[in-house]
Structures are given as C-alpha cells and as structure tokens.
C-alpha cells in the first residue's frame, strides 16, 4: 500500500510527464501546490484548461493565437505584402521582439528533414502558396534557422517561389554580437565576408 495519498501521486505523475521535470522536481512542485492557497492552484488549473480550449492556429499565418485571424494578420497597419516565413511560433516572438518588422508572418511548423521523414507535405508550404494567390505579395523573407534543415527548407521554398516573380530574401548570416572571431566556423566566416557592408 502506498503511503502517499492518491491525489498527490496523480499530480506528481502528471507533472513528471512535462519536459525537463523529473520525479523529484515533480514532487517538489506538487507539495508546493499543496501548501499554496487554493486560489493559486485554481488559477493554474484554469490557465492550463484555457490553453487547450482557447488556443488555435491562425487560419492565415498558422501562428498560435486565441482568435483567428490572429492579431498580426488582422492588424491593418501591418504590411500584408511582406511575409516572413519562420519554422516555429517562438520564432515569431523572437522577430517581434526586435520591433523592426512591420509585415506579416507564416509559420511552417517545422523544417524539411528527409532523414526524419519530414518533407514539404508535412509543413504548411501548400498553405503559403495558397496565400500568395489570394493576396498581393511583394516580398517573402525566409527566416528559417541557419542550420542545414533550415537551409534545405529555404532552398526548397526558393525553388517554388522564384518562378512566381516574387522577391525572395533570406535573413543575413554572419557573426553574432559578442562573439569571438577565433571560434567562428568557416561557413559563418565566409558568409560574414560575403555579406560585409560599408561603414
């Protein structure tokens, strides 16, 4: 017979299924919740429920949102003629943080990885092409990750988009701020050299 009460074991089990949370952390969190005021536990439970009930994918850009079209897509001040293509919803957050971009987004939900069996059909690429037919788009900015999967995705998209007469650009790549030249790999350095700019 277990010495721990069933409701506690249940919370511990559920929490330890989360990424990065082992059995000990799960126990600690559970006992914290047990001692916390009832309102705090209820707020957490409600927040989790709302997350699953009210969060949807935007019908246009496929970003995660609570209403569709999402805030960015339905904002008249954003330039719908520019679409920034990213791999994951978190990438939208990263680009928004710069405050430099005034266009719209398109979230692919992954990158091409033949070895994992992820091809173009598993990503929101067909939906992107659909968007191009219904709206006047001048430029597509490919902001996939600067690794091999991201590059493959960007190359594949370029193949599809260039014949349509749309300007296709890729985020510049080179040395990060605060980096050390001596540790840069040759591909990054040659990219930085190729993309050097006049001061």
């Amino acid at each position, binding site marked *: 017979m277990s010495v721990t009460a069933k409701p506690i074991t249940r919370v511990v089990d559920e929490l330890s299924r989360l990424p990065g949370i082992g059995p000990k952390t799960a126990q600690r969190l559970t006992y914290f919740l047990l001692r916390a005021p009832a309102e705090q536990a209820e707020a957490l439970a409600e927040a989790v429920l709302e997350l699953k009930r009210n969060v949807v994918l935007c019908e246009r850009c496929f970003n995660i949102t609570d209403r569709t079209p999402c805030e960015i897509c339905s904002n008249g001040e954003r330039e719908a003629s520019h679409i920034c293509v990213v791999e994951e919803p978190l990438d939208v957050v990263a680009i928004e943080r710069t405050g430099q971009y005034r266009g719209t987004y398109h979230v692919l939900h992954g990158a091409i990885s033949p070895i994992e069996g992820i091809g173009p059909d598993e990503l929101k690429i067909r939906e992107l092409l659909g968007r191009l037919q219904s709206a006047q788009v001048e430029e597509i900015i490919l902001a996939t990750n600067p690794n091999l999967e991201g590059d493959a995705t960007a190359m594949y998209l370029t193949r599809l988009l260039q014949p349509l007469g749309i300007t296709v650009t890729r985020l510049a790549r080179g040395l990060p701020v*605060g980096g050390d030249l001596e540790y840069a790999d040759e591909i990054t350095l040659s990219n930085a050299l190729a993309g050097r700019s006049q001061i």
Partner: protein
Amino acid sequence: MRGDIFAFIKPRKALTNSNSPRVYRTEGIVLKGYDFGEADRILTLYTPQLGKLRAIAKGVRRTKSRKAGHLDLFTRSNLLVARGRQLDIITQAETIESFAPMRIDLVRLSYAHYVAELVDAFTVEQMANYPVYATTVATLRRISTAEDPALSIRSFEVQLLGLMGYRPQLHRCLSCDTAIEPVSNRFSPKMGGVLCPLCASEDRAAGPISVQALKVLRNLQTNEAAILQLPELPLEVGQEVEARLQEYIEYRLEKGPRSVRFLDQLRTEGARP
C-alpha cells in the same frame, strides 16, 4: 594508469578501460541530430576508430555557441569528447571539412541525407569500421563536386553493402553456381544476388536484370574508379541499377530509407516545366 599520456590520445582505450581518462579526442561526421532540452542537441556521429557514437552537444542551438557551426549535419570535425554518465559530451569541435558546395544545392544535400541515413541504418553503435568511415567521407566529397552525384551514390550503396557483409553475388548463379551468362537473368534481393534463367523459379519475387545493369553493378563492385570517371550512365540503365539496389537495401533493412521519398519528390518537381 596515471601518467600514461598515450591513453589520452587512444580513443578505443577511453571506452573500454575503467581507469581511462575522462576526455578523449576523435574526428567524426555528424549523421543526424535532434534537439534536446533548452539549447542542446543529441548527435549521432560516425567516427573512424569508435564507429557510430551518440553524444550530446550542449548549447549548440544558441546563436553564440562556439561549437554550433562545427557540428552542423554532415560536417567532418575534430572533437574533444568528455565521458558522461549516460551520453558523452562534446566539449570542443573544429571543422576539418564542411563539404560546402553540397550545402547550397538541394539535390546534392538530399543525397547527403540519404548517405547519412544508410550509414546510420546499417551500423551499430561503438563498433569500429574504418572503411565505412573512409567511404562515407569520400562519397560526401564526391557528392559536393561530382557532375552527376547519382553515380557516386550507386557506388556508395554497393561499397557499403559489401562492407556490411551483404555484398551481392553477381558472377555466379546463387542456386546452381554456374557462371552468369549475358542473357536475361534475375536479381533476387532475398537470396542476395543473381539467378540464371534456369533457376529463376528459386525466388519467384526476383525481377529481371538487364545485361547492361549487371555490368554496371559488377564494375561498381570491382572497378569503382573506372565507373566513377564516367560522366553519367545512360538514363534507363541508371534507373534500373538504382531500382535493383533500392530493392536489395530495402530487403536488408526491412524498411525503405526515408530520405528517398524527398529525393523522388525533388526529381518529379524538377522535371516539371
């Protein structure tokens, strides 16, 4: 043993000897990787002395990572690896060869995926096989520069099958052991080679193989260099050789390589006007 500085540079010892140093040096090619935790990636590497190896590269998904560029897929790097409790940890990495021309060509890149997938599928962890490493490096080099990478891929398939102990018998009939004549023979993935017309009933699933395709396959086995000097194979022969090897690989792996699907998709899309 303390003070034995040679133990430090002998990677094999590092894995077998319980007194072995906590770090070892090896070179390796990154075959695949997946994201792990906050900013880490777990990589599958193929190394010359240790064979296939799984190790964790910490923090490589951060833009400021000093290792990230040296540990991208299909990069050949010098590594310093620390022994971990479950997974070894890559502490330093420096590129030896990045096969750069392949990275800007989608078709060549997909071939590299295919090569990596085959090496990963056919090998087991920590069993050294230097020829496999050498063939993989040579093939990646060829893929990035050769005019027709497809031919390098066929050669790689034949070499790898041979190194793994699955070298197909292409000179004598698998059933009656007579020399194969230049007539309409059959290729049996199940039996691992060619059947003469009289023994065709030994494996009813065996499909026909043309004399030209058989010649190409034999040459890939014994006279690789000559074949690789050809600019390309006649289209039909190339397709046939590819199909027969594909059947054989699929039979041996008990599954079709996944990267083939993307390659096929690229080819059909590329053929469209």
